[in-house]
């Protein structure tokens, strides 16, 4: 029981680190896609392609660079989580009513001021929903990390498979499913709350 708690904590830790990184990188790329017109298609297509790559394939390739262990898993999760965050940042800013942007320009705000005072705050609910999708997906995918030597709840699942022990598999699987549902639930609640405030 104690060990499952440990695996759960490690699992969450990996997902958390990955999501923080991918939120930072994703929002940056989303803003770049918004600012630089001809880059938007390239960035979004690339992120789309990365997400299409099978997870084991991506992790295996990353392993050749980062070696066995948590770093590879985190790198893989970051790459995977980029698409929803980039896309939501981009469309979130894009869909702000033109008159609001015009007003900001008219008041003499610089590009950065507009970004931090107007555009990002208004796009925040959408960005958050992107982070939610990324987090819930990452909780599921990180199970595979055990195959490239990372820790987390994938470990008991894999051990269970190897030893034909359904109980052991479940001991890892149930927390994963619960975590995914829990995060989905909590983040959906938060999402609704911030959306209401913004309106």
């Amino acid at each position, binding site marked *: 029981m104690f060990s499952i708690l440990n695996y759960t904590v490690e699992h969450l830790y990996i997902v958390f680190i990955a999501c923080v990184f991918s939120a930072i990188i994703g929002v940056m790329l989303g803003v770049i896609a918004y600012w630089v017109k001809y880059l938007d298609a390239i960035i979004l297509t690339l992120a789309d*392609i990365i997400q*299409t*790559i*099978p*997870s*084991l*394939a*991506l992790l*295996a*390739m990353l*392993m*050749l660079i980062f070696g066995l262990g948590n770093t590879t898993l985190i790198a893989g999760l970051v790459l995977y989580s980029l698409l929803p965050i980039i896309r939501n940042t981009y469309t979130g800013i894009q869909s702000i009513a033109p008159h609001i942007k015009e007003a900001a320009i008219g008041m003499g705000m610089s590009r950065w001021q507009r970004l931090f005072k107007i555009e990002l705050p208004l796009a925040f609910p959408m960005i958050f929903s992107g982070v939610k999708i990324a987090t*819930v997906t990452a909780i*599921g*995918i990180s*199970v*595979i990390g055990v*195959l*490239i030597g990372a820790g987390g709840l*994938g470990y008991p*699942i*894999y051990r*269970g*498979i190897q030893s*034909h*022990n*359904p109980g052991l*598999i479940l001991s*890892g*699987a149930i927390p*994963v*499913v619960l975590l*995914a*549902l829990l995060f*989905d639930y909590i983040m959906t609640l938060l999402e609704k709350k911030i959306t209401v405030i913004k309106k």
Partner: protein
Amino acid sequence: MSEFITFLLDNQRMIFQSLAIHIHLVIVAVFIGCLIAIPIGTILSRYQKTAKMVLGVVGIIQTIPGLVMLGFALVFFGIGKLPAVIVLALYAILPILTNTYIGITEVDKHYKEAARGIGMTSIQILFKVELPLALSAIISGIKISTVYIISWATLAALIGAGGLGDLIWTGLSTTNDHLIIVGAMLAAVIAVLIGAAIGYIQNLVTPRGLKVRR
């Protein structure tokens, strides 16, 4: 580099075989998935209350990691292709089911009323109006399923189903970088290519009348 090419040439039979098995697994699983999901999605569109429940359960099943399901398949059905196909098909059902249901229920009710008003039977309305209008959404569901299944099929190697996962997996356990690169690259390439191909088909079967307003 030349070392890698020699490796490719030496092992080309095995590589092609893995690729073929992988694609075979995916096609069979997605095909079974379609056969089950499209009729059920269509029927559910007639029973919206039941549908909410079913889709809720489907959503929960979707959060179960593929590795877990494959693990259970191994424990209960043993090693081989069949358990892998069963699990993969199960996963393939989910996005197709959801998209079929949503595609049909989101057809504007005016079209359905017009269709009823001019004397179409409910079967005719389904085949001439609802399904054609939902087709794009259904194919989009098939695309999502296929890309997922290509990914999860790499894990199927763990329960002895073979495929590209076999190359990656053997590579990982014997630290053979060449094997890993070949397996991973091929898996990535077919996922991207097949995804793009289905997207192209989706565009192709969407009637011109539905594409004009974007």
